[in-house]
């Protein structure tokens, strides 16, 4: 992701992702707040415009960590390790956002903040694995060993993502099945709501791309300092 061996400041693409993402964020918020309410849930359904992008970015970020962890194991280039680290960190933040917004949504709709049903349990495990990823990174001092161990967790931890995504179909759960079902292509959503959701997904993805490049750069500068 970072082409120059020793970059000192973010490149134009990073700035473009961050700038465009931040610029469009209020537009996404406006769309979310002006989208129609749901027949059954009323305005409560609008938590969706934060909850779904949060979960999506968690999944996407852990996938990128998985890819760059694999790349690191095959190529042994510390740059790949830094991108894996950056992505896992951002993924953890957004997965946390999905968990918090999910709990705030569950209380008025389901009746409880938390229950150990399949989707919630698998997501909690997923979150815990990536907390473990950072505990492990913090515990190992040798950079090469640290990168290798982290890559192993980054690869194994990702297995939880498809399990978490499919959990609502594989097991009896309280969580509803996917409204935008990627396995069947069926969409159970009002067009106006769908547009607002897709726009927010797009904006959050832009921000993720900007964040991951910026964080990888910071990690590169840290590594440079560590060497010197």
């Amino acid at each position, binding site marked *: 992701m970072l082409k120059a061996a020793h970059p000192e400041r973010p490149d134009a693409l990073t700035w473009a992702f961050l700038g465009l993402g931040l610029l469009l964020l209020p537009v996404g918020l406006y769309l979310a707040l*002006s989208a*129609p*309410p*749901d*027949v*059954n*849930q009323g305005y409560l*359904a609008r938590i*969706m415009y934060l909850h779904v992008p949060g979960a999506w970015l968690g999944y996407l970020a852990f996938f990128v960590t998985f890819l760059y962890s694999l790349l690191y*194991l*095959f190529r042994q280039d510390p740059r790949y390790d830094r991108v894996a680290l950056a992505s896992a960190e951002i993924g953890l933040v957004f997965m946390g956002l999905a968990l918090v917004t999910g709990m705030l949504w569950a209380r*008025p*709709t*389901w*009746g*409880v903040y938390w*229950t*150990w*049903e*399949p989707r919630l349990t698998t997501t909690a495990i997923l979150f815990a694995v990536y907390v473990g990823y950072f505990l492990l990174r913090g515990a190992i001092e040798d950079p090469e060993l640290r990168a290798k161990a982290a890559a192993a967790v980054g*690869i*194994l931890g990702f*297995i939880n993502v498809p*399990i978490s995504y499919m959990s609502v179909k*594989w*097991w*009896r*759960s*309280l969580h*509803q*099945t*996917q*409204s935008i079902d990627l396995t069947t292509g069926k969409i*159970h*959503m*009002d067009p*106006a*709501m769908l547009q607002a959701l897709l726009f927010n997904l797009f904006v959050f993805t832009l921000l993720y791309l900007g964040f991951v490049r910026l964080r990888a750069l910071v990690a590169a500068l840290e590594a440079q300092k560590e060497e010197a």
Partner: protein
Amino acid sequence: MRTKYLFGLVVILGALGYLVFGGLGQNLVYFLTPSEYLQDQARYQNRPVRLGGLVKPGTVQYDKDRLELRFVLTDGVAEVPVFHKGTPPGMFKEGQGVVVEGRFQEGVFQGTNLLVKHSESYQAPKAGWTPEEVRKLIEEAK
């Protein structure tokens, strides 16, 4: 080196695949349906269980003063009378999917926790929800 990693990955993926698609799925049941419970009552005797099903239309009785909610939970095959003390959640209504935590006492399921399962479908209301109409409602309520 590379084949070693690949081999490890395949072994772990295989094991997880077995866990997911194999026998584990049957033992991870979040809730039982009324007919499953009634078929195997001895197994769940004196144990807290979760029952899931639909609220049978026409059976909901709610005593507002004593906060006593009674309804019949059905899975289309078996029916179970449920007694729950407390205010029903906002989305609780007839025909709605619910999960009740509790245990059986003298043929009635005593609920300690009532959870409402909502659908994956999001639809805008036909009428009455445009911003102007909502603003009017709020102003009238003042």
